[in-house]
């Protein structure tokens, strides 16, 4: 007789009774419950919770199948259920984190490996062609030169510090590629951030401004980046994000140098800069080294300019103090959006 498998959804925010069972199942598989998971698919058989898979936006995490039930193709049903759940939530391009030794298992789910941190974790996506198509688009934007720079900005919002970094990099390079983080998890929308960067770099001739993508500091490739204010970081996985840059994006555009501002304030960004040197320059990889150049931050009146300082002044409504820190288009946007509001921004997402 075959036992009946009952698949259903569980939302951690409702604190359902299943959470304890999920936690136990994960613990039995050396996994920890990830606090970012929005919804789980679970499988119950004869009253027991025997399998689960979690979904955080477009990323699948915390997948476990009870030991005794392996080899029954239960996992393929689980995979189908989670892919369908994602589709119902409007997510078709999916990522998945797995221990490297489980990679063959997730190949059966239609996921393909992108990058691996040896012995630790591998990032997979559910398409055999998406990354290649993305790189193909990037290759069309290649520019000739010996020194090709790359900068990734969140620019939340764009400051004179960002402009200084971009100008400095552009002078040192034959061509500079600038990416704006696409994830809408910051105080300022992607649209606003992108427009302010575009306005702030238009005077530079040897520069291409690129839209962000799922592959550059996104919730999928670098979840920790968007959690830095909540201080609940399960995994920052900066290595994953940096390896994607080194193994796909940099080769597609011929990027030889990655520019970044020094980070005196924010611990997540500061450790990101250290990780950058490790994963772009030192770690063994089949791809060429990308040299990391840290540019000391521009200071005004003895204090380094940072977007977080700008947001802090904005929270106080101190527009006079903001003026020397941001270019005119940013100041106009800040005034338009915030001047007439007694807006308490403390506690707002400030990634």
């Amino acid at each position, binding site marked *: 007789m075959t036992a009946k498998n009952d698949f259903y959804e569980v939302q951690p925010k409702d604190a359902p009774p299943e959470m304890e069972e999920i936690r136990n199942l994960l613990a039995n598989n050396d996994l920890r419950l990830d606090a970012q998971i929005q919804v789980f698919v679970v499988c119950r058989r004869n009253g027991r919770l025997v399998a689960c898979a979690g979904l955080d936006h477009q990323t699948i995490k915390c997948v476990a199948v009870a030991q005794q039930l392996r080899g029954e193709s239960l996992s393929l049903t689980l995979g189908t259920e989670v*892919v369908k759940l994602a589709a119902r939530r409007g997510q*078709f391009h999916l990522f998945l984190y797995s221990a490297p030794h489980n990679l063959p298992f997730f190949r*059966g789910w*239609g996921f393909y490996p992108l990058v691996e941190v040896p012995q630790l974790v591998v990032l997979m996506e*559910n*398409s*055999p062609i998406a990354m290649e198509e993305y790189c193909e688009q990037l290759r069309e934007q290649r520019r000739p030169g010996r020194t090709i720079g790359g900068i990734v900005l969140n620019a939340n919002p764009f400051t004179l510090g960002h402009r200084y970094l971009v100008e400095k990099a552009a002078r040192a390079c034959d061509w500079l590629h600038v990416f704006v983080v696409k994830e809408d998890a910051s105080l300022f929308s992607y649209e606003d951030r992108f427009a302010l960067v575009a306005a702030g770099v238009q005077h530079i001739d040897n520069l291409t401004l690129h839209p962000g993508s799922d592959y550059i500091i996104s919730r999928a490739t670098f979840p920790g980046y968007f959690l830095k204010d909540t201080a609940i970081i399960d995994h920052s996985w900066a290595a994953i994000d940096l390896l994607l840059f080194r193994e796909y994006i940099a080769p597609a555009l011929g990027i030889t140098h990655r520019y970044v501002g020094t980070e005196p304030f924010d611990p997540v960004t500061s450790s990101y800069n250290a990780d950058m040197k490790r994963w772009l320059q030192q770690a063994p990889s089949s791809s060429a080294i990308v040299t990391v150049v840290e540019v000391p931050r521009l200071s005004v009146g003895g204090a380094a300019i940072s977007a977080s300082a700008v947001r802090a002044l904005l929270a106080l409504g101190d527009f006079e103090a903001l003026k020397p820190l941001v270019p005119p288009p940013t100041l106009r946007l800040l005034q338009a959006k915030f001047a007439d509001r007694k807006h308490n921004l403390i506690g707002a997402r400030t990634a």
Partner: protein
Amino acid sequence: MKVIKEAISGTLESSDLLVKVAPSEKGAIEIVIKSKVIKQFGKQIRRVVTQTIEQLSVTAGSVVIEDKGALDCVIRARVQTAILRGCGSEELEWEKLS
């Protein structure tokens, strides 16, 4: 008819297939087939997929298939379902589905 939105059909289980369709950026038909039995039946699978798409008069769309050894009739049914979902078709032309 063109694929205008992302859609899926099928499952990952043995003897079935998962079909994903999406709008094509190049405005053409793009087919990618991954199969456990690509060496034995790759050509035949591609023939069935191409025929099914042509019969539905689809002119643009990306079709990615994860096949687990499905029979031709299953492949046809799953591809039809994914395409019709992705094209947002309300009315079915049954003669094109035979």
